[in-house]
């Protein structure tokens, strides 16, 4: 069982093999917890999302046609993101207000990609949930503003303004961090 590749593992999971399901869970739980935790406020909420997400993965696996590992990973990730958004909506955590200012002004957040992963995650989690959600969806998951507006039930402008604010805040935090190190 330990030597099974992802496709074989998925096939076994489809037939309801609990050992295979556990193995698949063990392979994917860390990166998927990373997805959940960057959306959710608390570890408990992230665990709930992870559980619900994996449950849906196993339930819907029969209808999934395996092409390659990346596609499968992307599929699981999308399920986790959707679950996280559902949970945020359910908890009424997302409070997104339209802020119409400087929407077209570009803010460079490329230094973020040079950060250590743990620090990066910590930084993203420290910004308000509305900013964080839009930032994650746009910058990390790669959704367009149109898609984000549909997913969150907000206007495209609101999505843009949230992203702008998120980037601004992250940049300020990076700068202050640099200053701390510098001093």
């Amino acid at each position, binding site marked *: 069982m330990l030597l099974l590749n992802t496709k074989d593992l998925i096939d076994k999971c489809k037939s309801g093999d609990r050992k295979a399901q556990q193995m698949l869970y063990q392979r994917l739980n860390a990166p998927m917890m990373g997805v959940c935790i*960057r959306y959710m406020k608390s570890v408990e909420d992230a665990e709930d999302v992870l559980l619900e997400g994996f449950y849906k993965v196993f339930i819907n696996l029969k209808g999934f046609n395996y092409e390659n590992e990346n596609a499968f990973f992307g599929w699981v990730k999308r399920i986790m993101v959707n679950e996280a958004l559902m949970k945020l909506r359910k908890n009424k955590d997302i409070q997104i207000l339209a802020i119409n200012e400087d929407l077209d002004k570009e803010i460079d957040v490329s230094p973020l*990609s040079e950060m250590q992963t743990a620090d990066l995650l910590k930084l993203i989690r420290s910004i308000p949930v509305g900013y964080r959600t839009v930032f994650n969806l746009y910058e990390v998951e790669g959704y367009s503003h149109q898609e984000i507006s549909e997913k969150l039930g907000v206007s495209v402008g609101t999505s843009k303004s949230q992203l702008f604010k998120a980037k601004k805040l992250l940049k300020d935090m990076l700068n202050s961090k640099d200053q701390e190190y510098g001093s």
Partner: protein
Amino acid sequence: MALNQLSKKLDALDSNDIGTDFDEARVWNRLNERLNGRRYPYYWWMAAACLFLLTTLPITILKETEPVINMYAESAVVESAIKEPIRNIEEEPLESNTHVVPVISPQPRKHAELKIAKISKLNLTLVSIEISEPHKEQVVFNQKDISIIQASLESPTIENGRKVTIRAQWQKSPSEAPVNYQALKIKLYEKDQ
């Protein structure tokens, strides 16, 4: 445009990077329980069906055998059966020594279910009406409102003490229009012979 590097970096997280007290075994145990719960959902359906049958069946049987409260205990109970075709009843008004105890059935029946010949006019002296669990939308009548019942019987013969369902209209007085239409259950008794 997504920052690909950012996405790659975050997707490659391992449990140390998460930096929280995430307990993967605990989540797996919960997930395993959830998946086990789903494995035999039909057991729950069967259990629910059995429970439903166990609760509804005795109620149905009880309803069938439910005695009609006899308000004429001191004068009524009859030995002999009243077994006569309905047309006889139609032809002759019920004798004064026959008592009718109507009981309003909780649910009105569909008209189509009632086949029988009509009792042209029954002048009843009502003593009591038992209304069991009247439905919210159902008009409930006071005993004093009813003086005349026009009814049709569900079965062609009436046996002594047997409960019979009729459909009826009743009026306060012959001059007024019927106030409603309702399924009734009546039980016929004959006075001491």
